[in-house]
């Protein structure tokens, strides 16, 4: 027992060695003056700027000072809106395509044609169609999140065990009951896998989407800081986005493990004691 504990301490230490060494090396490199400090700010500088961005400590980030939470919220709202639309439409369409051959025949070719077009390249059309502010950004996020959800929903429905459907129809289930009580729950693990890929895409696309006409958001601060060469803020924004991406993924994982609680099989013996 205590041995295990020691091992796990060493394990933990090993995990931190490389990141810590990297950050120290970066700090030294920045301070060495090999590149202008403004082009490669040291981690400590980044932290100071980030702190000001969040807590408005020393006003060094000017207009951004103290507005981090606001930026994070703006980005999160965009991600949430686009992601929610993508999730609902992706699941609905995916289930329909996976279940009815005629839907597959009529709708799928169009979607498959659109799929390989990178979401970023829709930016010009997004501005024309949706104008300015949040709408084009949400559209881009939607584009990024839609296809992973769709493809996984289709796959989930198509791989439902045929015998489960047979068992349900033996018990007198109608088609809509089969869809609701069998196909949908059976496809859920695959749908959740799609939702997890999609949240990554969604965050990735916000960064791109916030290139265009929005007034706040982590991506906005990133491009704005880049435009005006505040690389400390650029790195702080990158880290913030990475962090939020990680957290939302973790949240979805949590929801998933709750909804799919029936998947964590334990043996009978494991339960009885």
């Amino acid at each position, binding site marked *: 027992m205590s041995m295990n504990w020691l091992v796990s301490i060493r394990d933990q230490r090993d995990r931190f060695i490389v990141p810590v060494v990297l950050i120290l090396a970066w700090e030294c490199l920045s301070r060495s003056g090999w590149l202008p400090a403004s082009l490669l700010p040291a981690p400590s500088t980044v932290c100071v700027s980030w702190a000001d961005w969040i807590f408005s400590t020393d006003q060094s980030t000017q207009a951004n000072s103290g507005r981090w939470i606001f930026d994070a919220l703006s980005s999160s709202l965009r991600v949430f809106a686009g992601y929610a639309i993508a999730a609902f439409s992706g699941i609905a369409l995916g289930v329909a395509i996976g279940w009815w051959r005629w839907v597959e025949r009529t709708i799928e070719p169009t979607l498959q044609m659109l799929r390989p077009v990178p979401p970023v390249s829709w930016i010009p059309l997004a501005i024309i169609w949706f104008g300015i502010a949040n709408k084009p950004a949400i559209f881009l996020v939607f584009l990024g999140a839609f296809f992973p959800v769709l493809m996984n929903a289709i796959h989930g429905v198509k791989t439902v*065990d045929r*015998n*489960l459907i*047979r*068992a*349900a*129809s*033996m*018990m*007198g*289930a109608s088609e809509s*009951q089969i869809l609701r*009580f*069998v196909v949908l*729950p*059976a496809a*859920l693990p695959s749908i959740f896998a799609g939702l997890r890929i999609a949240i990554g895409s969604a965050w990735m696309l916000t960064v791109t989407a916030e290139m265009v006409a929005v007034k706040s958001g982590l991506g906005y601060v990133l491009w704005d800081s880049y435009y005006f060469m505040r690389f400390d803020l650029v790195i702080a924004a990158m880290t913030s986005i990475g962090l939020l991406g990680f957290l939302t993924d973790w949240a979805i994982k949590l929801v998933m493990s709750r909804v*799919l609680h*029936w*998947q*964590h*099989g*334990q*043996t*009978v013996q494991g*339960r009885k004691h």
Partner: protein
Amino acid sequence: MAAIELKDIVKIYADRKRGTELLTIDHVDLSVDSNEFLCLLGPSGCGKSTLLNMIAGFETASSGTVSVAGKSITGPGADRGMVFQQATLMPWLNVWENIAFSLKLAGKSASEQREAAQPFIDMVKLGGFENHYPSELSGGMAQRVGIARALLLNPAVILMDEPFAALDAQTKIEMQEELVSIWQRHQGTVVFVTHSVDEALVLGSQVAVMTHRPGRIRELIKLDLPRPRDSTSPEFNEYKRHILALIREESALARADVAANA
């Protein structure tokens, strides 16, 4: 009137790979009386599952008619309960929810479902496991749930497709004993597919031995053995010897067939 009546059944599958047609069932006639326990014994690929699926209504015959209790079959229905080889429980429902799934479909409330499931849970000896999920059950337990689910439908006919094939020998023996005792108490007609001679002889009141593909009924044997069956008794082994001989003959024919085609 026979409980199940198969008349001149032919089943032809399209073989996509070779673009030809595959004769799977070749003019099968079979009639099972009420309260019989028929074991369908045959080599792999001879069409046992296909026959069972036609009785269940999952497949339709290419020609011939299937009727249960005098009515011709057009699709699956709750008058025929099926127990599958893999238990095919809904993994997201726990034991009692799985057993009472048909009541949920009928719009019954959760408490009604729970209540109706209890006698069947007791019948298959799963008391204490009501709230377990399928992933937490051993193979034998999952099969018991599948049997309880089929029994709750209160069907005239129970169809079983190699339900014990995946279990280890000891569990299999236990389950066989239990199934027989349930059948004796519950009554009803059972069609049980298997490829194990011992299993057919331990369970059946009749054994239908099928030929290799295309499947025909080679011989229908009425078993005159006392229950509980003793697989080491001379009478039992008399039947076994006879059936093994049939199977050896069939295997030889099958091998000759393959050699001729190769």
